[in-house]
């Protein structure tokens, strides 16, 4: 995987995880909405038994067998180690999840998870606040399998408390019938046939990132003025009736229901939508560049010693190339594990050449990482982005 050499370390830190978890397909759009309410309740499991590990992850982000309703790789892990892995698909949104568990983290009370899966910028916040535990490196020998490009993000330069779960690309998705020529630029996106049927992501760094790139701004160095300018652009497109909604996972549902014909979305979702709808949808990294980010396996400060050890064993297991390939074949996000591509050849050769899972250097060089923000910026920028959405 020497393919990503031309990437910045930040970009590398993001190459790795977000395609299938966001693949909320037709009819499953309720997940995001359900999150609205679920966010108010507790999650996870209060029992922290010796022999269990509790993992909070995004929906549709782990290989799942429809017939047996089980997660094959997780079942194999339990059989192999005797550790009972409890899996919760209740990490719906970085901010919401943080809001839900922050008070307990602050008080040092068990949050109900031994592993959580925050996106880079949120992982950075947990580390800053001391809410993450450092791994016992001896328990995770497979750590060396992380792609070189992902090995030293600024928030955790030696990967002492995070390892990438998957990487996510942000770009344009569209309905092929309504946009036969495809969408490569902001002008293509805001074309008359899409008026009132454009949906963009609630994930600020992806939506504003793609727009900034379209405006020729380098998002690895974006200034506040440039950011606010892009937010004003979005606000104007909303008030003029171009943008129908700013959504999380539910945008996939809007595409299938016809309420949206063009989106700023995530590659994995679009990939799965296309395969489930006979090629009715397509995805492209914008001409001016797309965004890339990563979700990370992290052990919260409140996990018990036993929970932490079990979590480390599980993280180590998912860094075995064969296991990583099995997950990637289902989730279709950028795979962060060295050797997984070779393993993929054995189980799904057609996916081993997928740019979405194993991006070539050329593709990777077109993906950009939104620069990290200071706490002040984080609040101020989030506020501006929320206000643009009418909140």
């Amino acid at each position, binding site marked *: 995987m020497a393919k990503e050499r031309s990437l910045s370390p930040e970009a590398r830190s993001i190459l790795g995880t977000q395609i299938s978890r966001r693949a909320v397909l037709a009819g499953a*759009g*309720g997940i995001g*909405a*359900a999150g*609205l*309410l679920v*966010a108010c309740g507790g999650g996870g499991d209060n029992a922290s038994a010796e022999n269990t590990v509790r993992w909070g992850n995004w929906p549709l982000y782990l290989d799942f067998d429809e017939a047996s309703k089980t997660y094959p790789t997780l079942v194999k892990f339990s059989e192999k180690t005797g550790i009972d892995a409890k899996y919760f698909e209740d990490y719906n*949104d970085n*901010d*919401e999840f*943080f*809001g839900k568990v*922050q008070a307990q983290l602050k008080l040092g009370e068990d949050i109900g998870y031994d592993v959580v899966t925050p996106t880079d910028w949120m992982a950075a*916040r947990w580390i*800053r*606040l001391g809410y993450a535990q450092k791994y016992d490196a001896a328990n995770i020998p497979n750590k060396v399998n992380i792609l070189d490009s992902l090995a030293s993000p600024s928030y955790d330069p030696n990967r002492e408390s995070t390892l990438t779960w998957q990487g996510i690309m942000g770009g344009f998705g569209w309905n092929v019938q309504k946009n036969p020529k495809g969408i490569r630029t902001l002008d293509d996106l805001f074309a008359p046939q899409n008026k*009132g*049927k454009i949906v963009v992501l*609630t994930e600020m760094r992806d939506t504003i990132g793609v727009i900034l790139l379209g405006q020729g701004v380098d998002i690895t160095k974006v200034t506040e003025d440039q950011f606010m300018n892009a937010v004003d652009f979005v606000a104007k497109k*909303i*008030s003029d*009736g171009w*943008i*129908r*909604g*700013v959504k999380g996972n539910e945008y996939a549902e809007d595409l*299938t*229901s*016809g*309420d949206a014909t063009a989106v700023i979305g995530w590659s994995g979702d679009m990939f799965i939508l296309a395969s489930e709808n006979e090629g009715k949808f397509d995805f492209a990294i914008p001409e001016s560049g797309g965004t890339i980010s990563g979700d990370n396996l992290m052990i919260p400060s409140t996990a018990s010693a036993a929970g932490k050890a079990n979590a480390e064993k599980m993280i180590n297991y998912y860094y075995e190339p064969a296991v990583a390939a099995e997950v990637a074949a289902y989730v279709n996000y950028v795979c962060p594990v060295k050797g997984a591509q070779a393993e993929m050849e054995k189980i799904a050769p057609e996916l081993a050449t997928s740019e979405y899972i194993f991006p070539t250097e050329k593709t990777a060089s077109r993906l950009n990482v939104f620069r990290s923000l200071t*706490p002040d910026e*984080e*609040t101020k920028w*989030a*506020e501006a982005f*929320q*206000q*643009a*959405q*009418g*909140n």
Partner: protein
Amino acid sequence: MTLPKVRVPYLLLFPGFAFLFTFFILPIINLAQTSTQTRVSGGDTGQYEQTLAFSNYVNAFLDNKEQFGRSFVYATLATILALAIAYPLAYAIAFKAGKFKNILLVLVVAPFFTSFLLRTIAWKQILGEEGFVVPGLRSLHIIGQQTTLTSTSVAVVAGMTYNFLPFMTLPLYASLERIDPRTIEAAGDLYANGITAFRRVTMPLSLPGVVAGTLLTFIPAAGDYVNAAILGSPNTKMIGNVIESRYFKIVDYPTAAALSFTLMAAILILVTLYIRKAGTEELV
């Protein structure tokens, strides 16, 4: 022997008070404290300290006047619509349904068997571009080719009307059903025609139900955010959406708390004025 007698009411009240204290009073105090905090300078996201910044209230209100106004307009519209739909319905069940009365009542309550959220999402799909309603209305030229039903204020108000309809219907039914039919007969004996009898007898007697129903609809509707989130667009956001966003997205707890208090106060004032005006001591 008189002492235990005095204690009985207190004993009976204890569970209720304990519950309210734990789950209402304590959170309210906590919320009040949060609402006047400001960011710790140089602190991280979500770190606030108490500075008694009452200006939070002013800023929170001024920044979100539009959403406050919209919430009350939408809630009022939904309440009026629900009343217009529920009154004839409750009347028919109470006076005209005969042996079907119980079945009809079950039908009114039936939607409760499904989650509020799922029902709202179902409406989004029914009214979506590729549901059967939009193409049908378009082919009949009732709506234009570009007109959509979801992501509009009409969809949000309609969703709230639908979701809160049982809360309007049931109190109306209860008060109508209680009316002694002989009073209406007596009106007829006194030469009142049907309309006059309704206006002078049935309606006044059902007024407690109207007040209860409108309150049970208006109060949750004003604070609702699910309908606006699922059926609306960024241009139809209500105050509930702002509070949700402030709390979860911006991690701005003080503003979220200040907005919640302002909303509570506004509802309390409106409801008090309404009850005074309606003058139904019988209620509450």
